[in-house]
């Protein structure tokens, strides 16, 4: 065999060259970028939770599917020159993670919080909006305790012992126990119940992200007379897009799209920009 190889060097080299090319060819198709797949497919598959989240993805009063996340998805689709298909199977935010890992969806843009637990499984873009944690304080209870605005930091940062209303089994139930260890944390089944207790004056405070807090004021117009929003500027909740952990090129691409888009970061302005 070896004598044959030496005697027919040119033929051997040719055969090796052909095999290498075939192998390279296979390697290329095995590593086809998700971008190419999407373009070949003709549509983008975007993952969002089943229930609407105003102002990120929701049906507006004109019946149109609108919101910040919808605009981001549309931008990516238009840049790739494809259509969009929305996958709304996930019943919870955590439910979106397996979908992107299993490549059922191309990416998640769904008011998704960037947490370390999730980051072990998926790749996150840079956050495109950063929420801060916030509270709604009862103005009347503040006035009765003689606490004016400049005294609020002292009240909250030093052994706050008042009531804090939160949603049960939410991240804010956990944050409340960590940030306000001496406070009386009261958990309710739904956000509506928490808000009700806050408005009717049963609680000293209510705790969630600044968007939901400001939404309470917006949706219950007369509540600003009795409830004071307070933002904790050093406690953050970053929102980002999630992709499959192997898709580095796609991740870089999405980061560029986000960078080039104008995204309203101000929560108050966001609420007026997208009309219910």
């Amino acid at each position, binding site marked *: 065999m070896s004598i044959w190889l030496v005697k027919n060097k040119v033929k051997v080299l040719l055969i090796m060259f052909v095999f290498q090319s075939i192998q390279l060819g296979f390697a290329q198709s095995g590593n086809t970028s998700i971008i190419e797949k999407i373009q070949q497919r003709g549509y983008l598959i975007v993952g969002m939770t089943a229930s609407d989240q105003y102002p990120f993805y929701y049906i507006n009063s004109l019946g149109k599917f609108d919101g910040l996340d919808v605009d981001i998805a549309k931008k990516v689709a238009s840049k790739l020159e494809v259509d969009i298909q929305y996958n709304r199977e996930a019943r919870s935010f955590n439910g979106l993670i397996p979908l992107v890992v299993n490549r059922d969806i191309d990416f998640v843009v769904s008011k998704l919080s960037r947490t370390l637990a999730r980051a072990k499984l998926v790749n996150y873009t840079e956050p495109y909006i950063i929420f801060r944690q916030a509270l709604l304080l009862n103005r*009347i209870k503040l*006035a009765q305790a003689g606490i004016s*605005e*400049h005294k609020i930091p*002292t009240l909250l*940062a030093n052994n706050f012992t008042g009531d804090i209303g939160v949603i049960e089994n939410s991240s804010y139930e956990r944050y409340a126990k960590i940030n306000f260890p001496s406070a009386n944390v009261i958990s309710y089944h739904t956000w509506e119940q928490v808000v009700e207790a806050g408005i009717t004056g049963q609680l000293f405070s209510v705790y969630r992200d600044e968007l939901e807090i400001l939404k309470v004021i917006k949706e219950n117009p*007369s*509540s600003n*007379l009795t409830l004071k929003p307070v933002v904790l500027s050093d406690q953050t909740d970053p929102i980002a897009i999630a992709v499959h952990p192997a898709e580095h090129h796609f991740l870089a691409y999405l980061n560029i799209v986000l960078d080039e888009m104008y995204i309203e970061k101000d929560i108050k302005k966001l609420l007026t920009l997208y009309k219910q």
Partner: protein
Amino acid sequence: MFKNSVIRVLTNPMTSILAMVLGGLIGFANNELGVKLSVYGEMYQLLLKMTVIPILVSAVITSLGRFVSDYSMKKMLGKIVFALVLFSFIYSIVGIGIGYIFRPGDLSEEDRSIVSEQISLQSEVFNMELETIVEESSQQKEIIDFLLFVIPANIFEALSENHILAILVFSILFGLALGAVPKKKGQKIQSFVIIFFLEIYSVFSNMVKYIIMVLPFALICIVSSEIANSGVSLVLSSGKLIAIFYIFGTLLMIINTIFLSMGTKVGFFGVTKYMLYPSLVAFTTRNSIASMSIAIDVLKDKFKFNHKYVQSTMPLLMVLGRFGNIFYFALVSMFAIQLYYVQLSAGMIVFLCIAVVLAGLATSGANGFATLGVLSIVMEPIGVPFETILVILLIIDTIVDPLRTTLIVHTNTIISALLHRFFIKETETKIGESS
């Protein structure tokens, strides 16, 4: 003479009223012009403001100097203080009573929403850092801190920083001390100082008179720019408070006028006619010190009162008689209590009556929206969130301020006239007769 008739036309109240109507029409019909004219209105207000401190200082010093040195005036001091206290508490109690009966703070759900929305539009959301170490700042505001705040270490610093209360404290102390310097035979020093300040007073008061002569033109600019800029919705929601204030404030002025005019030759309408010009000046300029000069002239020329008496009593009254503010603060307290469904107790009502008078006193010499902050001493002890109330008050202040100033000027003028009528026996003049 042409000049005299021009002056007569310009200073006629009807001219000013016509000017206001014209300004209103311009502002309504041509928004842009109205906004452009606002600069001239501001210029005018600044000119008047320029005269406030000189008049205030010179008037207070000379008036108090006289009170201490002149025996006949000394007798009046007790009566003046009594009248001030009496009227202050009457206005406070009446204001609280009217607020209690007519309920300005009972807003419909819709009005509450509008008010609430305005508050969130006008105020930034409060940001704080949870993890910075915050020191317990013992910022308890005691009375002693207030006194420290109000006594000027450097009078020239107080003058240049427009720190009105400190300037007042200085003027009062200076005037009292000046009057107490014993008159040595032949020594003219004390008289010289009093004459110096009297001259300053008459110079600036003349300046005011000339400035007021062009009031009609300024009114066209001021009113047109305000109509062009007005924001209607919050005004309508707090309309009840504004309406109650205007109706009952005017009623108080009418009652005072009736009280003064009883048994006089000119009667109610005569007195009203005399009072019309100073009231109009107060209403349109919102400057009680500038209006004081006009009121003093009316008391001297129209009512024919003793000049020394008028010159001495009016500054003191104008500075300490904050009746418009007292009445408004009383109504506002009830408004806030009703808005926040605070339970009223008898003790709270007594506290309110006194606190409102004190708050009114703390606005001495100053005017306008800067004085609204003193209401915190009324609101905080009764557990009303003052932050939100303040926002509402600041927005409606342009509408309320004219009547507040007019009430102050009108009531003080009436008190001065009443005291003169009942206690000054030297000249025995009846109102309307020439001496």
